[in-house]
């Protein structure tokens, strides 16, 4: 697996992208996390989150210009969340004192910060916590001078002092009344500061910096020229920011365009540049998400009811506790999870694709030790619903399949997980089922009907009937090919076996003159279309829509059905339309499921999900069968059998087209595993006998089994086939290798054809062998 490609896939998942509020915030405050805390009435936890991003929480909570709020997705749904007011509530109602500021071990590097405004204070704070020695120069007699002019109502002096106390508790040297450079110079010149310190941050406010013209390049004669991304000036050791940088347009608003949060941002990211400068690293690399940016996070607002902003009883006091909690509860807690919401598999493992992709890759990389994510890897239905709903078109299923293939290649795929399905494939590609012929009496074929292995297993009679109809309604010959398209091998990650299976089909198809293939199974259709592009393939449903239905076709007892579209043809509109046309012709009324066509779900069979993880497959089926009260209509045999197995009345489209001879087709449970094999084998002998006039007799097996419903159930659960039982008995009776339980008189015997040892408990009766119990194990015993 290519690491770079894995990373690209990981990055395609946007769930961990920040919400719009965080992305719009110059310093990316986790407003969503903070608001979640308030929603839980935990103001202290909320404050801790706020304080983690904001060095001066009391100041910012009162005066932030909150560029986050206009971006809030609640904007159109009752008004943006009042994030800044909630920040104030955190400050006002937090009962725990903020944790002590910790700082790194002291470094010998000395940095000068010029200017005691918000940007300079932030730079000083960040530098100290990173362990630098900081000297803070302030021209006036107090720090945060301009903030103190905002007035007691906007920003009480006491809050300023409390925030500054946190700074002053740190090892910082503050030199008040010390103006660096300038006409009224009371301190050293900038050149002297540059000389004395390893780096300098200038946060000197919006006033003209013309006095620095000898040391720095200026813009328009009065502003320090500052590189907006890196805060670099014309002098390599000097960085600058704050309102000197951004408040160019004094007409912006009354406060000279003062943006407190942008000042904090400038101080913070200038420190990043200073560190990079000191480490001689690139100043500009990897800064694309610095400052406000447009997030890729998608959050649906579909179905969300508008809710009005919670008003403040006393605006001068801000939100009360209860009001703040109420406002916090309006937050949408933006996240994507579009795929997780629609997929039981993705939901089952309690995370989302970005993490799953990493887990699966790590699982693949483990050389020695347990592979903890094998189950995650093998439980996906590969149905691609995730891709369909993903705003970024990330194919989790595609990645899962690649992982399976990679694990098979390195010999780390658990051998048992797909063994049963591959055995089924082996049966369906063996002499017992395969057949490829021109239509009886024809030397060539214009078409070739490929009913697939599962429809043949589930409803062999319908395969027979519909093939008759195709022969009658299409000129030029309709050949018949029985076999398996190889889907189980593909899903199991067995590229080798899948390739061989497809190649064998293609060879026979060519021998029949490369006719147009008609598939009755959506999975066969998908496999041929995607992996055998030279073979033209069409669905049975579009063919029937064109050539017409058999004369015998009649609507079933039920006249209203909800269509469950097949997941493997979720993007094939033509097939979906034809299914609906055919139902119309049959006089059946259609009720559309909410998640239909491209949004349909898997039935649990896809990707061999039901074999690898019956629990998840069960959830998938349960969720789907409760989407509507109406009888379901499927056009895939596995969907039908899986739904019917859980008691959902479900028709296959052929149940309605061919008519049902034995009772209520919607109620019929699909055949068990053993019967599925037998049905395929018998379909083959029936067509040979009845269509090609061959003298084929289905000989009764010399080992007749007497199987009670309970035993049949055990066989299904343990995936033991009648043919396995026969092999055990044949072996035991031929060799005498059996034991008798003296308490019950029953016989016990085992046989290991290849990789599995089967055990059978039986009694010999006159009419055959009565089976009491079956089980198996893969371990060898000697």
């Amino acid at each position, binding site marked *: 697996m290519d690491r770079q490609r894995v990373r690209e896939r990981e990055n395609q998942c946007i769930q961990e992208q920040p919400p719009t509020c965080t992305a719009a915030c110059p310093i990316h405050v986790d407003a969503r996390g903070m608001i979640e805390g308030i929603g839980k009435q935990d103001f202290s936890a909320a404050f801790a989150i706020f304080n983690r991003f904001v060095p001066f929480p009391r100041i910012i909570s009162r005066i932030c210009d909150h560029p986050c709020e206009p971006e809030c997705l609640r904007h159109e749904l009752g008004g943006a969340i009042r994030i800044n007011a909630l920040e104030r509530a955190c400050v006002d109602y937090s009962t725990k004192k903020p944790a002590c500021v910790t700082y790194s071990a002291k470094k010998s590097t000395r940095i000068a910060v010029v200017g005691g405004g918000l940007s300079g204070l932030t730079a000083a704070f960040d530098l100290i916590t990173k362990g630098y020695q900081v000297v803070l120069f302030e021209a006036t007699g107090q720090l945060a001078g301009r903030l103190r002019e905002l007035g007691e109502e906007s920003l009480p002096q006491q809050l300023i002092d409390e925030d500054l106390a946190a700074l002053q508790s740190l090892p910082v040297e503050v030199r008040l009344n010390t103006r660096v450079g300038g006409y009224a110079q009371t301190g050293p010149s900038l050149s002297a500061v540059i000389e004395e310190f390893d780096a300098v941050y200038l946060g000197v406010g919006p006033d003209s910096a013309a006095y620095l013209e000898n040391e720095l390049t200026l813009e328009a004669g009065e502003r320090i020229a500052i590189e907006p991304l890196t805060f670099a000036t014309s002098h390599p050791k000097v960085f600058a920011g704050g309102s000197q940088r951004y408040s160019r347009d004094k007409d912006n608003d009354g406060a000279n365009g003062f943006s407190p949060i942008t000042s904090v941002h400038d101080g913070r990211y200038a420190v990043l540049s200073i560190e990079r400068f000191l480490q001689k690293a690139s100043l500009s690399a990897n800064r694309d998400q610095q400052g406000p940016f447009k997030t890729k996070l998608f959050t649906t607002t579909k179905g969300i009811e508008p809710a009005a902003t919670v008003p403040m009883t006393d605006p001068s006091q801000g939100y009360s506790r209860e009001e703040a909690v109420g406002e916090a509860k309006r937050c949408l807690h933006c996240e994507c999870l579009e795929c997780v919401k629609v997929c039981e598999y993705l939901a089952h493992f309690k995370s989302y694709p970005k993490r799953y992709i990493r887990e699966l890759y790590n699982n693949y990389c483990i050389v020695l030790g347990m592979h903890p994510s094998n189950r995650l890897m093998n439980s996906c239905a590969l149905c691609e619903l995730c891709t369909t709903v993903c705003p970024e078109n990330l194919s989790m299923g595609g990645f899962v399949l690649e992982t399976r293939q990679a694990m098979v290649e390195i010999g780390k795929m658990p*051998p048992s997980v797909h063994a049963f399905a591959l055995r089924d494939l082996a049966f369906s590609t063996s002499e017992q089922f395969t057949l490829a012929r021109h239509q009886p009496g024809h030397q060539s074929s214009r078409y070739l009907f490929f009913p697939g292995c599962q429809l043949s297993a589930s409803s062999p009679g319908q395969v027979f009937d519909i093939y008759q109809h195709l022969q009658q309604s299409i000129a030029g010959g309709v050949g018949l090919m029985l076999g398996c398209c190889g889907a189980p091998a593909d899903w199991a990650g067995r590229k080798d076996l899948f390739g061989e299976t497809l190649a064998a089909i293609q060879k026979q198809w060519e021998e029949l003159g490369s006719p147009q293939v008609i598939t009755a199974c959506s999975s066969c259709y998908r496999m041929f279309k995607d992996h055998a592009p030279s073979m033209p393939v069409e669905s049975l449903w579009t063919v029937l829509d064109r050539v017409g239905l058999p004369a015998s076709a009649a609507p079933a007892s039920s006249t209203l059905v909800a269509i469950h579209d097949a997941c493997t043809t979720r993007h094939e509109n033509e097939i979906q339309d034809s299914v609906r046309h055919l139902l119309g012709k049959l006089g059946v009324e259609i009720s559309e499921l909410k998640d239909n066509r491209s949004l349909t779900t898997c039935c649990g069979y896809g990707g061999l999900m039901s074999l690898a993880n019956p629990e998840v497959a069960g959830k998938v089926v349960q969720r789907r069968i409760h989407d509507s009260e109406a009888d379901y209509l499927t056009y895939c045999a596995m969907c039908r059998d899986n739904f019917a197995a859980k008691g959902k009345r479900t028709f296959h489209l052929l149940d309605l087209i061919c008519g049902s001879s034995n009772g209520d087709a919607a109620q019929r449970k699909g055949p068990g595993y053993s019967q599925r094999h037998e049905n395929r084998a018998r379909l083959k002998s029936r067509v040979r006998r009845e269509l090609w006039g061959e003298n084929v007799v289905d000989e009764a097996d010399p080992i007749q089994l007497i199987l009670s419903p309970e035993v049949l159930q055990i066989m299904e659960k*343990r995936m033991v086939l009648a043919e396995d039982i026969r092999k055990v008995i044949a072996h035991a009776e031929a060799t005498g290798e059996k034991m008798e339980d003296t308490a*019950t008189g029953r016989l016990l015997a085992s046989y290991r054809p290849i990789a599995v*040892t089967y*055990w059978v408990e039986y009694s010999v009766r006159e009419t055959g062998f009565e089976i009491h119990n079956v089980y198996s194990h893969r371990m*060898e*015993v000697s």
Partner: protein
Amino acid sequence: MTDKQKASDTPSLVCQKCQQPMTMGKVVVSYLGAKFPIELLRCPSCGLIYVPESLATGKMEQVEQSLEDK
């Protein structure tokens, strides 16, 4: 453990080939290169081994799963 369970766990078995009662003996179970010595009923004469259902569908299955994930 009740007597009934005991009885079902170690049934009284007779090898049909040798007509000898099977007795507990040392056997080795192995999977994917890992080997474990355990005691199971076996025929003292021909060595035919009995694997009880509870072992096959319990411990053995667990060990198989964890060895497969290695």
